[in-house]
């Protein structure tokens, strides 16, 4: 079961690390009210998944995983640009970035 991808470091240890990082990101999304910090937690989750993809690409000696990480990074960049623009617009309209404000958006 222990497949070493580095000297002394197995895939299992990287799986643990990425699961912990992803869970911390989920914790941030669930427990914070500040929209910017929620956004940063989403970035954290994306990055931990990227790390896991690189680990598997290294394990299988295949370039495919790293190409996928490249595309996911460009999607993340586009997402951040649009998302922050939406946040700035929301701040201009409501003078707040608390996500509870968004429940009044239809009034």
């Amino acid at each position: 079961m222990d497949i070493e991808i580095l000297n002394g470091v197995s895939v299992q240890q990287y799986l643990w690390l990425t699961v912990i990082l992803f869970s911390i990101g989920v914790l941030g999304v669930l427990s914070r009210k500040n929209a910017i910090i929620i956004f940063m937690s989403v970035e954290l989750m994306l990055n931990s998944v990227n790390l896991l993809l690189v680990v598997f690409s290294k394990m299988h000696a295949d370039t495919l995983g790293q190409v996928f990480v490249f595309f996911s990074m460009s999607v993340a960049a586009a997402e951040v640009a649009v998302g922050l623009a939406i946040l700035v617009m929301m701040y201009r309209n409501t003078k707040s970035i608390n996500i509870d404000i968004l429940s009044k958006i239809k009034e």
Partner: protein
Amino acid sequence: MELSELIFYILAFIGIVAALVTVTANNPIYSILGLIVCFFTISAHFVLMNAQFLAMVNIIVYAGAIIVLFLFVVMMMNLNDLPRSNTHIIWKISGAIGAGALMLLLVASLKVSGNLVQSPTKGDIGLIHSLGHALMNEFLVPFIMTSILLNSAMIGAVLLSKREKQLQK
């Protein structure tokens, strides 16, 4: 203990602490600084796995572009003047329970999953030479589509932030 194992544990510890700082800090600036440290440790993991191209791209795109964007937005909003929204303790506890349940689920599913299959490892898959070959041959169409995606995201961001001014006039 091997040297790479030691480096792995140090990087993992710094990364997890920085991620926790990101999630729990009250001041958004501290959150952003924690996120920078976390991204740099992930880039160091990439270097450790000999994925040097992705390490460079990670630093340039995440630490160079995304984090600077976050910093600009936070500093522009001047969040210290805003009334602090005190999250109720119930929300924090329920968020922690939810995240812990998800982590438990992931760990349990990893425990019962089948054995991983070892492949012969080559050292040079993460270098720019092999990645460039893959991007320009097999993945040429997605690569071009990425440029369209980035272009439309740029136009969308400009439109979103300009619309307000036109309404005010």
